[in-house]
């Protein structure tokens, strides 16, 4: 396996971390189990946290995370750094698995009350704007009305479907769909500018 010569590491922590993940994925693609373990050590907590937030129960969250890592191992050779950053790739895999699980079985968790997102929580906001993409997204989300911004964030973070969002926001399903579409159109325009 020919490992291509890499650019010098960037000075910022977040960039070098992403770069490390890319190196680990590259090594996983070559069948390096030690690299896979390092990838798990680095990403296990984050991916499990995301799965838990969506499934809201530990057993399906563990299932989703397990499936995601097996898929990461098997598909590592298909990760293309030209197409995007490894963080989005890894997070995408676990989110789709978790969403698969909750969409297939309607969520019936007696007594469960999902916590409200404080969409201006300072530490979350600090993490969000710590990358250029995050800062741009935050700026563009800021152009949306408060309720619409909340819809987008809740859909992504909690994995809520259109009808779950409608129930939560106490607005008709059609309204939720149209708010989400308009918000996404607005984000698309704002992020392209």
């Amino acid at each position, binding site marked *: 396996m020919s490992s291509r010569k890499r650019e010098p590491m960037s000075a910022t922590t977040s960039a070098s971390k992403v770069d490390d993940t890319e190196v680990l994925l590259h090594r996983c693609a070559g069948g390096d189990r030690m690299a896979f373990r390092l990838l798990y050590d680095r990403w296990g907590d984050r991916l499990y946290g*995301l799965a838990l937030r969506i499934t809201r129960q530990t057993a399906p969250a563990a299932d989703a995370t397990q499936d995601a890592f097996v898929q990461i191992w*098997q598909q590592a050779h298909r990760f293309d750094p030209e*197409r995007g950053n490894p963080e989005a790739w890894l997070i995408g895999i676990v989110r789709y698995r978790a969403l698969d699980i909750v969409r297939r079985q309607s969520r019936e968790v007696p007594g469960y009350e999902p916590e409200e997102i404080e969409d201006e929580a300072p530490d979350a906001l600090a993490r969000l704007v710590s990358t250029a993409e*995050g800062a741009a997204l935050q700026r563009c989300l800021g152009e949306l009305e408060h309720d619409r911004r909340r819809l987008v964030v809740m859909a992504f*973070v909690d994995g809520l479907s*259109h009808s779950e969002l409608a129930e939560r926001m106490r607005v008709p399903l059609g309204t939720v769909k149209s708010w989400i*579409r308009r918000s996404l159109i607005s984000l698309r325009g704002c992020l392209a500018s």
Partner: protein
Amino acid sequence: MSDAPDRDLLAAEYALGSLEGEERRDAERLLAADPAFARSVGAWQQRLTPLAAHVAPVAPPADLWRRIEAGITPATATIVPFRRRVRFWQATTVGALAVAASLAAFMVLRQPEQPRVAVLSPLAGGAPVLMALAERGGGLVVRPTASISVPTDKDLELWALPQGETRPRSLGVLPPSGRTLVAQLAPNTQLLVSLEPKGGSPTGQPTGPVLYGGWLTTIELPRG
């Protein structure tokens, strides 16, 4: 605003995760069939992923790495993953013998030594609810074959009771979705599942009703 279908918008909704029902299935079909749509989904994934910063990391269960490792053993790459098979069985409600037979077929590829299988059924009688597969290396995979509901203030606990003994040994709490663990089990061992207080029996012996049980039996493997 135009009402014409906007595929990039469907890709955005898919990446956001809010689609459900027929719309979600449409997006999945497109994702598999249309590379341009897949690129749109990927681009939206990139745009929206910073939102993941809202979610705090959580330490996964201690046995998760072992489960992942078990899922990437070299031979499994060429065969249907175990879990998917279990789902398939659940979906097709095959009988316990057919289940055991497919397990054996699966194990021919993965584990040349003779595996042992237990089908756990309600002690009061009825269809099997759990299957266990004991690998020679000490791995024990327990998976539901039917949906199990457990009261929120209770846990299931798994026990091993070797033939001739009277006190079962705890193998730990058993989530309704199943568990993979490591346990050295004597040749003739019965697996039992009891209903216990949250977190498992406080005494080290079953305190609640024993719901399910089954014997580990060796599967005869086809030759060649």
